[in-house]
């Protein structure tokens, strides 16, 4: 007993034994793979299939089902690609001698198509299919790219799902060969596109031609063929044009990437040199560690840019780094990532513990009913540079603006200032030391209190995210005036209502009630 299948070969329906079908499929796969690069691929393979059908019909006679014998006989008559190699006819493709050698070894190099790769899949084989398409040896790069794109905006996930849905899976042997195909470069990109166009236009024109043959001539078929021919010509001109522009355009992108790499490198090195005197504030006990971290960052991003630039030149000129070089550089790159992780862990350890010191200052000097409150926002001049207006660098100190100002209801009779000096550190003792080292000085003069909106970290100590929280306690019944004509940035205040805001009313006087601050002379809601 043998299972049978129904097939359509060259327009003729056949009933065929399953083992015979398997044999036939394998044979046709090799034929397709063999001719895929030749001009007239469609026509040749169709003709061969049509002829196979005829041979079957002749071999069958009165019988109904195609058996293995008919397939084998037909193959002997048609010949396999190995037989073609020994024949005088040779498809006019450059380097065909070399290609035949490879074909004998069973390694067909064919026109390239995008597939999902079921042999090497993490999720759906999309990445490794893309890697195969672009001739990248390791799909890891494409996966990293997808992860990067996913992290930096989440676009990676829908892109992956769409590709998963639309890309066919490489199921047959010839699919897999087509997936790898020959490397795409400037010299053949035009041809590959032309082949695809021919593939389509041929289908259409063949359809028209067949119609003509069967109906004894038809204007429609002719017209269709002319249109397709015209479209094909226009496309081939376009393809030619693009293949001419392709090279300078890619070259430009490659050059820009390499330039970006150089610029970032120079900027990084200059920055490191410039920043060197201040590195001590940030580095764990030893400044080399943070320098190392900066170096790692430069290498990691620099090499990505550089390899992007280089792979474009590779695409253009086929130049390839030797395997050992690539392995070495990849290893170096991975080493840098490991090193950076190490540095970051080391640095993170320095921030792992938090401690604070509380100071309480009774403002007994202020006896007047109203306290004039001022904020000193004038960071000392002659800073060398600053980071984002938050951290200012001087020759003898750094200055941070990480100061929280709050106004709260107080107990008792007098005004009180509470200061909490905070810092992080490798351990509690160190964090406490650093908190104690914060240089934050309130000024009391007559009935005025001036709080700076910044504090100093003297040179010789570390920056470990120090901060100051200053809370002014106003007893119920007494007043506070926000003295000055610039806006006040108060982080939190006990107020009766959200509006009016202190921020909108510089110069206003407020009274502390049981419910909180109440504005006496606010003009803006």
């Amino acid at each position, binding site marked *: 007993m043998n299972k049978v299948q129904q097939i359509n070969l*060259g*327009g003729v329906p056949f009933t065929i034994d399953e083992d015979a079908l398997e044999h036939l499929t394998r044979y046709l796969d090799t034929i397709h793979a063999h001719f895929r690069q030749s*001009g*007239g691929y469609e026509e040749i393979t169709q003709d*061969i299939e049509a002829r196979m059908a*005829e041979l079957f019909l002749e071999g069958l006679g009165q019988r109904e089902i195609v058996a293995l014998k008919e397939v084998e006989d037909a193959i002997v008559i048609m*010949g396999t690609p190995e*037989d073609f190699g020994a*024949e*005088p006819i040779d498809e006019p493709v450059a380097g065909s001698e070399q290609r035949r050698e490879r074909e004998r070894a069973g390694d067909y190099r064919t026109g390239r198509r995008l597939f999902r790769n079921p042999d090497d899949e993490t999720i759906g084989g999309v990445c490794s299919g893309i890697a195969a398409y672009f001739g990248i040896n390791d799909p890891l790069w494409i996966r990293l790219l997808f992860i990067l794109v996913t992290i930096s905006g989440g676009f990676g996930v829908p892109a992956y799902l769409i590709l998963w849905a639309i890309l066919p899976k490489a199921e047959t042997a010839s699919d897999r060969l087509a997936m790898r195909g020959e490397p795409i470069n400037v010299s053949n990109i035009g041809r590959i596109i032309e082949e695809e166009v021919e593939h389509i236009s041929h289908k259409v024109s063949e359809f028209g031609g067949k119609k003509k043959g069967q109906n004894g001539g038809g204007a429609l078929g002719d017209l269709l063929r002319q249109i397709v021919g015209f479209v094909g010509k226009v496309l081939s001109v376009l393809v030619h044009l693009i293949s001419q522009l392709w090279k300078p355009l890619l070259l430009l992108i490659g050059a820009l990437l390499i330039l970006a790499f150089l610029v970032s490198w120079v900027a990084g090195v200059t920055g490191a040199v410039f920043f060197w005197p201040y590195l001590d504030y940030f580095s764990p006990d030893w400044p080399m560690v943070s320098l190392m971290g900066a170096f790692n960052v430069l290498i990691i991003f620099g090499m990505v840019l550089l390899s992007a630039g280089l792979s474009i030149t590779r695409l253009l000129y086929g130049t390839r780094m030797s395997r050992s070089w690539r392995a070495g550089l990849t290893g170096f790159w991975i080493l840098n990532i490991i090193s950076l992780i190490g540095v970051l862990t080391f640095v993170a350890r320095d921030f792992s513990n938090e401690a604070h010191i509380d100071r309480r200052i009774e403002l007994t000097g202020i006896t007047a009913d109203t306290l004039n409150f001022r904020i000193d926002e004038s960071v000392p001049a002659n800073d060398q540079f600053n980071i984002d207006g938050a951290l200012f660098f001087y020759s003898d100190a750094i200055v941070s603006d990480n100061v929280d100002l709050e106004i709260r209801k107080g107990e008792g009779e007098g005004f009180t200032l509470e200061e909490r000096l905070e810092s992080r550190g490798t351990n509690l003792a160190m964090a406490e030391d650093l908190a104690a080292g914060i240089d934050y000085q309130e000024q009391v003069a007559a009935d005025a209190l001036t709080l700076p909106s910044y504090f100093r970290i003297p040179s010789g100590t570390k920056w470990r995210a120090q901060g100051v929280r200053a809370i002014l306690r106003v007893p119920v019944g007494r007043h506070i005036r926000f003295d000055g004509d610039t806006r006040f940035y108060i982080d939190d205040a006990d107020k009766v209502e959200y509006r009016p805001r202190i921020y909108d009313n510089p110069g206003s006087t407020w009274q502390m009630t049981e419910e909180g601050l109440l504005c006496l002379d606010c003009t803006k809601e």
Partner: protein
Amino acid sequence: MKAKDLDKTRQQLVRQMRRGVLELCVLAIASKKEAYPSDIIAELKASELIVVEGTLYPLLSRLKDQGLLEYNWRESNMGPPRKYYSITETGRAFLEELLQTWGSLVQAVDHSTQNINYNE
């Protein structure tokens, strides 16, 4: 090793010789009457120019693309319509030139090889 190399070289030479005349023969066959590929193959097989049919189709496709051959669809009493190849005007002129070259080539080869004594 040496003998094997020589054998390979000889095979290549034979292949090149056949390749040189194959187009000529196909064009000649198609110039006599409208020909179905298997007819062409039958003639070529008789003269040992090709062995398997599969090799003829790429050649026909190329000659057609070069405008030397054209084909028409003919109804067949078994199976789908068949392609019948015939020579074009361009093809005929091309063939005549080729035949002239072939004639003088045969003369030249005959002349160079006529007095060979194999037993020497």
